[in-house]
């Protein structure tokens, strides 16, 4: 299990660094074809279909968002938001060897800077990973912001 945890942590850091580098395409390629990126709007939210979310995106919606990141007419992205992420306290919560899936929980601290303003984010993160050879694909990444139900301004990047 320890060896697995090390591999998982390496993967999470690799993922976070792709996001830091704004290498969205390489990041998106980490997902399984039906992989989901989810940012709930309520703490403990279990239902993504009949309850609103900040983000609930499949491959198609991620493709739109990622293309928009590079679109010069995305006015709210001018002056380029930049950010970094720290992933910590990773633990393997469940391991289904038969289905080759691992559920990992971790904590995330991140910051986004754009035009004289820094926004900080803290989140509980859950990854459902599928083992693939020596590495993993993301079947689900759930980023529950500590203040996910607060009144808040724009979130202009993936965390």
């Amino acid at each position, binding site marked *: 299990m320890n060896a697995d945890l090390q591999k998982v942590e390496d993967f999470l850091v690799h993922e976070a660094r792709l996001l830091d580098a704004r290498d969205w395409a390489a990041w998106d390629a980490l997902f399984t074809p039906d992989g989901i990126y989810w*940012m709930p*709007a*309520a703490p403990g*939210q279990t239902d993504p*279909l*009949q*309850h*609103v*979310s*900040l*983000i*609930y995106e499949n491959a*198609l*919606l991620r*493709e*739109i*968002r990622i*293309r*928009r990141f590079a*679109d010069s*007419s*995305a*006015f*709210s*992205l*001018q002056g380029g938001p930049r950010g970094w992420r720290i992933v910590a306290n990773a633990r393997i919560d469940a391991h289904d060897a038969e289905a080759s899936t691992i559920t990992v929980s971790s904590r995330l601290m991140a910051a986004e800077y754009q035009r004289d303003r820094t926004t900080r984010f803290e989140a509980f993160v859950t990854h459902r990973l599928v083992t693939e050879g020596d590495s993993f694909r993301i079947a689900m990444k759930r980023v529950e912001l500590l203040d996910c*139900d*607060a*009144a*808040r*301004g*724009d*979130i*202009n990047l993936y965390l």
Partner: protein
Amino acid sequence: MSITAGLVEDDRVHRSVYTDPAIFELEMQNIFGATWIYVGHESQVPNDGDFITASIARQPLLMVRDKGEVHLLYNRCPHKGAQVVPEGQGNARMFRCAYHGWIFQRDGAVRTIPLDDGYEGTCMSKNSPDASMTRVANVASYRGFVFACLADEAPPFREWLRGVDSSIDNMADRSPEGELEVTGGVLRYMHRCNWKIFLENLNDLMHPMVTHMSSSGTARSVANRHFGKGEKLPPAIEILGPFTSNYEFFEDMGIHAFPGGHSYSGGTVSIHSRYSEIDAYNEAMNAAYGEARAREIFSMNRHNTIVYPSLTLKGPIQTIRVIKPIAVDRTLVESWTFRMKGAPDELLERSILYCNLINSSANLVGPDDHEAYQRIQAGLMTDKVEWVNMQRHMGKEQPNEDGGWSAMGTSDLVFRNQYRTWAAYMEKAA
């Protein structure tokens, strides 16, 4: 002379209506404190004892159901002023103040005061009305939408709502049971702009094809890569695509304004009118209303309806956005979703998807609107140019038999009408 005199002309408004903190404070009294403001939906308090906290003009309120009736109380202990119920919702037999333990019945009447003999002969004695929570003077409900007017004298409710009551009707009628139910949580999006900039944008049909090219335009091009001509598109594409319809489409949608500052755009066609049919829903509607009436209900398809100054709704996708001004350059927009009773889950899921894509603070479309609002707020700091123009298609509006006016979709009619109302509210109270 009032500080707002001369700031609104027929075809332009002075920039200070968006930037002056003193004017903002006056608006809270003369508009938000003087007319009907949406506070919540009856379905949020279905059973006796159910309550939600609410607010008007930054004042904390408590909406609670007791003996079947909806009460609206100022959420303030009559004693030292503490908010009796913190933010949130729940069910309670009675309310107890966290500070000195005063206990109130669900209708706000005081029930227990610790050591109450100390108040004997004062206005805080138990039988004095001053010792109970204060009720909001005027509360009215239309199809479950609860409005309140904080002023002692309210405008006649149904007359005030005229013109846009039909938008609320259409949203409710789209339920096979004719009833709506708030569900699916709330999105709370803080905007760094004056509340009127947000409000104006909802029926500004000259902006979508420009502002939303990076989201809606990208959605179209991504869809073109993945789906063939005539192939059924996923709901997300059906939702995002129409925002970048061409000028002609938005012009033809038309726009309608009413006394009281109300308005709606669209009528028979809107950005919501090309969503895929859902057979089980159509069958439920036909069974409930008969085919002819069901067709008539669906033939109305409005884009944004503004119940001035703070309730905005989208009937065809069953969502509302409630505008809560916080400061002259801060506005909270709450977005709520409704389940249409008797309709398949797919309809609710489409409304939820719509809100995720358009109204969440991490959505694909709204940040570019928000960017425009912030640029307006910044640009209006220009001393050299003082006025904001509202002349587009001026004089081409037509009066209607329903007491309103209609114009082509890109007309500034709605803005001119909003400021005519704004000036009337501000000057009446001056």
